[in-house]
């Protein structure tokens, strides 16, 4: 695979995730959180808060961000960066909703 072409993996249907919600994709001992916002945009982040590895998939989704369930850091879904006064960032992955299916970049699994 060269840098240009992305291999996509079908991980399920868009409708499997509730609007303003998240579901997890597991691979070995890693977890990737796939978010769906209320406008049906999708995002994929490593399921670890930069603060203290809280599971971001369990947070409340709002304004393109998720609020971590453990200590309320606010993490941008698009960039993975902590917002406001906090700093740190979480790895993001490419994910797309196409014809109702969710496609995650295969690189996420390597």
């Amino acid at each position: 695979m060269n840098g240009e072409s992305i291999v996509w993996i079908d991980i399920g249907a868009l409708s499997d995730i509730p609007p303003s919600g998240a579901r997890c994709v597991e691979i070995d001992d890693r977890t990737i959180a796939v978010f769906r916002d209320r406008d049906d945009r999708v995002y994929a982040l490593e399921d670890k808060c930069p603060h203290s590895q809280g599971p971001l998939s369990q947070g409340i989704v709002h304004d393109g961000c998720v609020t971590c369930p453990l200590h309320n850091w606010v993490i941008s879904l698009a960039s993975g960066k902590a917002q406001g006064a906090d700093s740190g960032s979480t790895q993001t992955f490419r994910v797309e909703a196409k014809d109702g299916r969710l496609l995650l970049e295969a690189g996420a699994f390597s």
Partner: protein
Amino acid sequence: MSDQQKQLVVIGNGMAPGRMLEELFEREPASYSVTIFNAEPRVNYNRLMLSPVLSGEKTYADIITHDDDWYAANGVTLHKGDAIEAIDRDRRCVVSRSGIELNYDKLVVATGSSPIVIPIPGVDLNGVYTYRDLDDVQRMVDVCAGGGSAVVIGGGLLGLEAAAGLRERGMTVTVLHLMPTLMERQLDPAAADILKRAFEDRGVNIITEANSREITGSQGQVAGVLLDNGTEIPCEMVVMAVGIRPSKRLADDCGIATERGIVVGDNMTTSDPDIYALGECVEHRGACYGLVAPLYEMAKVIAENLTGACASFTGAVNATKLKVTGIDLYSAGDFADGEDREEIVLRDATAGVYKRLVIKNDVIIGVVLYGDTTDGPWFFDLLKKGTDVSEMRETLIFGQAYQGDGAADPLSAVAALPDDAEICGCNGICKSKITGKITELGLSSVDDVRAHTKASASCGTCTGLVEQLLALTLGDSFEPSAATPMCSCTSLEHGDVRRLIKAKELKSIPEVMQALEWKTSAGCAKCRPALNYYLIADWPDEYADDYQSRFINERAHANIQKDGTYSIVPRMWGGQTSAKELRAIADAVEKYDIPTVKVTGGQRIDMLGIKKEDLPSVWADLGEAGFVSGHAYAKGLRTVKTCVGTDWCRFGTQDSTGLGVRIEKFMWGSWTPAKVKMAVSGCPRNCAEATCKDVGVICVDSGFEIHFAGAAGLDIKGTEVLGLVETEEQAIEHIVAIVQMYREQGYYLERIYKWARRIGYDEVRQQVLHDAEKRKAYYDRFVLSQRYAQVDPWQERVRGKHEYEFAPLAKLDQVVAI
């Protein structure tokens, strides 16, 4: 016809070629001999206006754009009702259904698009229509004459226009929409919600997330629509408005390149340089268009190129307007949330206005307007041109009228109001009365103005205006009120919001946000859980809980731990347990490898470190032993601690254990502003620590002493005494009444002791102890709310509710590369 005249043949007589010919004749009236073939048996009409014809507001004659005289005057030959069946590129001719063969020098394919029909059983029945042309409208109008019910499948632009039209004709109308919100491609959820209510107000029933499984029929005639969830909606007519597909068959058949539509380049020719394609049948740079504005641009480009110029079409952004009388809606661009985007939201609840601009790098990229769409074209123009709006940001949302000389000040809108403009609608107070009193009496705060003029004293929605008037009148000496708003999405305090939810009968989060003029389109992690609670508390039988507005513990019905696992605490009524219960816990701990079991400070057992996926199975096992959720995670009733009382204790005066169990069984499941803990002690030695609880009972010989407003967490505070009652029944009624009063008045996350201190302990005694009628009313409202709240959330989930919450979306070994 001169010999030099070349033959121009047009297939399809829709809106796009109509415009193209006008543009062509304006430039060079005599350059071509024009022949049009049209499948429809009529002249050209304004397709956009079909909805007013359907509703009866207009007639066919009103919407004709090019009548027979126009064709005659311009020397155009129109073959009505004669479709082209084939294009023969070798012979450069077209062949019509009636057998006409005609040569062309230039050919324009403008076949438009056809409605998509979803292939479910029953689509062939009589009474199933699409919505595209005048014949469709005529068929629908015929059915309407007989009255009855119609189902419209599709809650997009066309479906909603059809629904409104059918409703105008007196039909009972239901719209079925697959997605969670209407017109999801054009509207954000906030505007979609206002739209939904506007339709419901005119009597159109709207069901979202409705997946149609089958159209049922009898004797070849439509009888109803059956949904996936088993609901059946009876009807005489079904209108399918789920989308359109470019009509490209002629192009496919003759070997012209097509994808979704007929592929054209920027000069609008197809892969054959003598054949243009125009209108909805076109695919240009990967995009197909379904609105006329870009089609008119294409029309102009073709007209120019036909006269030898070399114009190009480079694509277009669309703006949408819904044409239903009385509903003003405008949307354009991209309005999804995003951290790189900012939004400006203006809500004017009285006028029913919602406006939202989405801005990225100082440029408008999305516009949604509801109620007042006058500035739509102006915003759209800024969007298309990519104008930097940073200079006019403060006043941008107010529209074009507020831009330019000297007006770039948000206060100017208020300053510009005439003296007799009404500021407070509830109390009929005008601007000059308020400014007059401010100067006359030297008022300096909103509270002062309220006290002296009554302005903003009722529903409070004009508070912002009153503040602006203070700022205008007092200049720099005005200090805005120190009110602490709920969060940065609103300037209202919790109390205002609670009052207004009741006063204005607001029954959903989007409704609250609209009516109370939220500054964001969808709220934040602070206000959403609070609003969700207020709505549950105020409308227990009507409000649908919004789980995405709850913290994870309440969504998963377990407590999240620092490593992402969960802990669960089943109820042990009044702290009592049994061998059977203990055995079930022991079995579950072994079976699911639960690492820690601990006795809590609340007289029950906590199992910690459970994997989220295992929760439903653990609950299923515990449920068999009779356990229900202990709500150790909830802003709701937690524990009722008891001591052993008269059952065993040599000092016991009453059955404290029994009363505790009764209270817990009566009150569990209820949601409250913050957690509620109680205790019942059998005598004043107080082994159950009742005097530091939210509500406590000390049993004495003469009855039950009821306590409230204690604290032993972040703060330590002994309880206040409410009073002494004689019987268990009275004790329960008083306890329930206090809790219900708190449920109705407390601010989200405010414990009982803080709420009671805020409103005054005597006020609680007055309403709960001394006013029997009030007490009974509180009690009754609590009982009503319990009908909906007292459902074991664990067993609900064992039965499959919110299944997605507990299972991963995928595990890698199950996925397939595509």
